């Protein structure tokens, strides 16, 4: 081996070490970035950017709602303005057509004693009945809570229950509903969510498949807003003479959507990726009732989205960052004047590829690639390469030589 070969090997070794150190510095900078947004004045930015996801573009820009079929297994009935007496009549009428399961996503309260009794009787006639309940202050990490809010006890006595919380640990005024929790814990005991409980009566095998996945949270694969389900107004059903044959063997969800009210009460609505504006100022777009319908539809059809594990996200970030460092080193050695333009081009091309791939793979394979860390890594790699090679490395080299001289 010639002296030149040895020199080349030594240089390559140094380059690899330089690449590793500057990659480490880049990852350290990414880890420290959230600290910048810890100032109270910048909290709104922190919330806004933490709610951002690339894959929202799939719903707003890629998906054509007209080609997505409605789910004919689910019937949503808006029960706003119905008294307990009206609800009794509605439930009696619906039950006569033998739906597979009735889910009530609404708090029932006691009022007139006679009316309440009639309602209790009507509810007791339902073969499969699920009520929603609300977990109080669930812990977002453990999903543990110690109390729940339910309808009055006389109504729920012969029913199953499932929790209806959609955003745990996040304020619905600022965050988008992208995932749901199939299970939670009440005083240590496992409880299932409302859509899971309802789906269980319709297709228990589908629910088993969901629970076998063993995930703490599932990405919601939205079908669509109210137009993707069979939707009726309870008051119209009572006032009209409709044949409700379509309800037979179906899932019936009773709750309040507000569609027939003519205006939306914002507190009843959530932001979802289906919003025509995926970021920035917008009105919330979907009621909790319709989100539950989407969840039941997803569970029964088994069309889940998979997500890249965190370790893989970090590994890709490290590999991309290190590769960039090596490319930058090569450009600097081969022809330094191309470094600035070259590094910019590399950043733009890599970012476009990452963003495009993320969206395309989610669209085609329902697989969510979590490459936010990789995006930040390639953005910061340019700066860290320069900081390391032009400032830190010469500084450390000088200091090391001084130490050697003294020694």
């Amino acid at each position, binding site marked *: 081996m010639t002296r030149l070969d040895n020199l080349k090997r030594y240089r390559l070794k140094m380059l690899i070490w330089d690449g590793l150190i500057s990659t480490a510095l880049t990852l350290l900078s990414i880890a420290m970035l959230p600290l910048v947004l810890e100032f109270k004045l910048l909290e709104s930015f922190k919330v806004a950017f933490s709610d951002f996801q690339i894959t929202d573009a799939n719903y707003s820009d890629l998906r054509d709602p007209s080609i997505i079929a409605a789910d004919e297994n689910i019937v949503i009935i808006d029960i706003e303005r119905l008294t307990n007496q009206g609800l009794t009549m509605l439930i009696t009428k619906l039950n006569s057509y033998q739906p597979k399961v009735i889910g009530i996503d609404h708090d029932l309260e006691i009022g007139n004693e006679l009316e309440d009794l009639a309602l209790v009787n009507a509810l007791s006639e339902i073969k499969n009945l699920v009520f929603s309940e609300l977990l109080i202050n669930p812990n977002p990490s453990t999903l543990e809570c110690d109390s729940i809010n339910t309808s009055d006890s006389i109504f729920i006595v012969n029913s199953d229950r499932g929790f209806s919380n959609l955003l745990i640990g996040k304020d619905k005024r600022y965050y988008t509903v992208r995932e749901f929790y199939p299970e939670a814990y009440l005083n240590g005991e496992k409880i299932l969510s409302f859509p899971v409980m309802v789906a269980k009566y319709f297709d228990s095998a589908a629910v088993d498949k969901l629970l076998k996945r063993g995930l703490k949270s599932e990405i919601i694969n939205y079908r669509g807003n109210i137009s993707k389900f069979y939707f009726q107004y309870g008051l119209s059903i009572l006032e009209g003479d409709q044949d409700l044959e379509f309800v037979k063997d179906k899932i019936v969800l009773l709750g309040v959507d507000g569609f027939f009210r003519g205006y939306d*009460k914002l507190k009843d609505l959530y932001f979802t990726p289906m919003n025509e504006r995926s970021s920035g100022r917008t009105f919330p777009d979907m009621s909790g009732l319709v989100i539950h319908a989407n969840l039941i539809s997803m569970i029964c059809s088994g069309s889940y989205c998979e997500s890249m594990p965190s370790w893989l996200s970090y590994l890709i970030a490290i590999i991309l960052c290190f590769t960039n460092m090596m490319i930058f080193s090569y450009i600097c050695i081969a022809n330094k004047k191309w470094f600035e333009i070259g590094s910019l081009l590399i950043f733009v091309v890599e970012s*476009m590829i990452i963003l495009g791939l993320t969206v395309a793979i989610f669209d085609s394979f329902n697989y969510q690639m979590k490459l936010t860390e990789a995006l930040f890594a390639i953005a910061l790699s340019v700066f860290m390469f320069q*900081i390391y090679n032009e400032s830190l490395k010469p500084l450390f080299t000088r200091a090391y030589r001084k130490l050697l001289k003294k020694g």
Partner: protein
Amino acid sequence: MLKFLPIFFQIDFLDPIQNTLQDFQITDIAFSQLMHQDSSIDSNIVLVNISNLERRDVARQIDILNRHKPKIIGVDGFFRELQGVDQDIPLARAFSEVDRLVLVSKISNLNPQTRTWDSLETSQSLFNRYSHDGYSNFIINDDQFRTVRIFTPVQVALDTPRLAFAVEIAKYYRPEAVQKFLSRGNETEIINFLGNSERFLTFDYKQFFTDSTDFSIVKDKIVLMGYIGPTLNVLTNEDMFFTPMNDKYVGKSYPDMYGVVVWANIISMILRGEYYYQIPEIISQILTILIIFSNMVLFSYLREKRESLYEPVSIIWTFVQLFLLIFLILGVFYFFNLELKFEGVFFALFISKQAYETWVDSLKVMIIGTMPRIYMKFFGKKTRDAMP
């Protein structure tokens, strides 16, 4: 892989960042987090929620209010179609008995050459024959989703200068304040928000159907009637806007203010005489150029004299400037009611280091390297011939 190619052309990847940032202005931080943290109210203005009441019930509200002699009543609601005598006659009669009444109008069809409006829409003549009118249009950019920060005091519609709804009302309440306001001669004015409906005396629609409410406080006041929710302050998507008072000044949140409350804020601003000033566009541009140029000088100095410090100092100094600018803009806005329009500076600062390096390390080197060759190619023979 090629089948994914069309996706690059279907998606605007910058859309999420664009949407988030273009809805935002730095001065929103001042309104949202710093200003009007006290609980003072403007007692000149009384808000009345008309909810989804029928016209004859709105007439009832007006009758009750009118008994207590308010100075002026403004109704932020259109009465376009006739709804039958049992609804329309009571309302028209109630309107006729109000001393001073202002209804909203709407200007539309802007003539781009003359900058005047060709259409003016008002309520039915049955109702507006008893009233003055003020246009109710807010200025909302297409790319800023229902965000209200500014308004126009005067616009020309059908060849006649028209006042905005709030200005028309304030004119009858305190003419000298409106005169002072209009003498500023600004085409647009930044709204100096006082706060939401809790900053004004407010009545819900239900209170007009009980006997227990005392309405005597409306005497000699401005009464603004409009939609403030199905019941007071229940947020809906009807006539709701985002304003800088929103507790989240960027990103997703619920809209925070009903249109009639925005008008109340504008009236309050005119009566208080607390306006904002804007530096002229040309001064903003000059300052931007100066700031960027001084950065380039600093970068050059560091490269010449302190090359090892160039990278860390340039990055740190860029971020320090960004933060200093934010605090400067906020401080000047908060203490001096002056708006510095420096949005361009932020972007320029952000890319200044990269632009400097691209020029000095790449483009300049390439151009200087290429020039001798071009020179020799075009002038080389003559030069060689000319040489002794």
